[in-house]
């Protein structure tokens, strides 16, 4: 018997529709916490994204200034400030932490629709982070996926992910993401402050913040080219 009038597929679809703007620009800040004995590192960057397929990121903090990433469909390219050519990041490198944060490159740049990868079902409804949520379990339909199981708490009212748990095939909890703050912009509810916690390492978490957010703005298509990256 269904717990809700809506199916899990419909809820996930609505949640993804909430992120389906044609383009977005924002300035990101990541505070990376690597345990009690290590200093917090702060990374700043600019993100330009057109649809789900094309993203360009440029780091602006002093230590990483000039490091750029370009995602075109399934391909991700990197160019360091002292590199003369871009390198395609592939295979297990995509599972590395992006700029040392707790977001992997795959986390940051995933473009597949969840419903293409997972079979969802509503487990229950509950209050999480003071929001009424659907607790939806997603089990992967395909093999060789970074997180074979996800549990997503979707806000019942605004359909954004309030909390996400990412699991390994063994059932071990790998990461936990909590949305701390959202921004209502042009009819979309966008999570703009997120805490991503690495559950495999003690006291390892990243606080991600989006500033100066602009959506559905015109972006020059030249920005998403390898030539531009290597300039």
């Amino acid at each position: 018997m269904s717990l809700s009038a809506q199916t899990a597929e419909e809820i996930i679809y609505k949640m993804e529709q909430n992120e389906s703007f044609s383009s977005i620009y924002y300035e990101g800040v990541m505070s990376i916490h690597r345990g009690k004995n290590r200093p917090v590192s702060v990374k700043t960057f600019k993100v330009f994204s057109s649809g789900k397929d094309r993203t360009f990121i440029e780091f602006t903090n002093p230590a990483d200034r000039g490091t750029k990433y370009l995602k075109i469909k399934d391909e991700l390219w990197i160019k360091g400030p002292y590199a003369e050519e871009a390198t395609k990041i592939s295979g297990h490198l995509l599972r590395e932490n992006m700029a040392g944060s707790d977001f992997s490159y795959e986390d940051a740049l995933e473009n597949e629709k969840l419903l293409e990868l997972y079979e969802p079902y509503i487990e229950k409804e509950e209050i999480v982070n003071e929001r009424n949520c659907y607790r939806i379990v997603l089990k992967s339909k395909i093999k060789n996926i970074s997180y074979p199981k996800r549990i997503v708490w979707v806000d019942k009212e605004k359909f954004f992910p309030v909390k996400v748990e990412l699991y390994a095939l063994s059932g071990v909890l790998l990461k936990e993401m909590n949305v701390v703050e959202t921004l209502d912009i042009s009819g979309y509810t966008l999570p703009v402050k997120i805490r991503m916690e690495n559950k495999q390492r003690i006291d390892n978490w990243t606080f991600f913040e989006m500033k100066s957010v602009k959506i559905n703005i015109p972006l020059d298509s030249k920005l998403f080219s390898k030539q531009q990256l290597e300039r």
Partner: protein
Amino acid sequence: MKKKFIILTAWKNIFRNKRRSLLSISAIAVAVSLVCFMKSYVDGLMENMAKNIFLFQTGHVKISHKDYEKEKKLMPLDLNISGFESDYTEIVNTVSKMSGVYEVLPRIHFASFIDRKDKLKNVLVLALDLQHEKSLNLKKKIIEGRIFEEWTPEKSNRPEIIICKTLAAELGVKCGDKVTMLTRSAEEGLAHMTFYVSGIVSTEVINIDKYYIFMPLITAQYFLKMENAVLEILVLCKTKNIANKIAFMINNFMNLNKDNPYIAESWTVQNDGQYYKILTMGTKIYSLVYLVFLLLASLVIVNTTMMTVFERTKEIGTISAMGMRGKDIILLFFLEAVFLSVIASFIGTFIGGAFSFFFSRAGIDFATLSGGGMDFQISERIFTTFNSSLLVFSFLFGIIVSALCSFFPAKYAAKIEPVIAIRGRM
């Protein structure tokens, strides 16, 4: 007088059956020469392996962050040595002044990818400060091009590296070419940079030449975002036997600082004593092999001495009946065997020593011998050791083992009953 008679008789006896004596002498000589050569080869091999392990892997003592070894698989470059007050050089300078310390080598060892035509190839990089690296002497090992120049973002030159010859051939890289490297930085993000190949180097160590790239320490510090820090400090002592003492002294010095995060470990305990086990086990296994060689040859001695006893049964009976005591008979046969083994050992040591001497100069092409597939820190060319102790060892070893083996047939001869022996029945 009686002893002199026995010695003289034993000496004369070895000429009674020249063919039999020749057989014994040649068997022992072959065994001793093999033992002599094998010992010099094994000593050379172990010495070479130890030298390479100390130089590239462990030092005699290695200083690192206490937590690095635990997380080594994750390659945590942030668990590095950045010193106590200023930077890592304060440790380098203090350790350099300790008595018994020969060389102090600050280094960063890391794995990286090289982008070659959109395919990523795994390589290992050793970043080092040439001012400290006397033993490695990289400049002398350049076979093409020149040594790298140090680079920092403030300098106008280009970042340079040198690549080992086998790896360069595999990557299809020549001097002047550029390669772009991708690795995880000390901040755990990706580091990405283009380097120019200033030279091709041959360390002549098989698995170093296969996987390694050398980079200036300061360049690597910028590349990996670990300015003023190194991953490890290797310490080479005047002799490896004082490694534990030096490690103790370094730890004492570092522990003067509250919450010291670093540890100095002697090579014997690093990696759960793995390197120590490899070296000691290797020596033991090879020692066993050449002991077996000698024992096999000694069986020939036992055999020929037994043959002598059987052939001379009547003679033994006669001399016993004439009053020669058992211990004199033992001595007679024993001395006969000793004379044979002295001659044989001399010849064997001479032949084995000559081969050892030759290969201690010319070397043995180990890469060809092993098919090049060895994944140990062994050089392509192994030089056998040649010294007086090798010759003395081989000579004495031959005599002692052979003489001991002849003791039992000699004892058997002494037990023969005179009456039965004279009748020719035993």
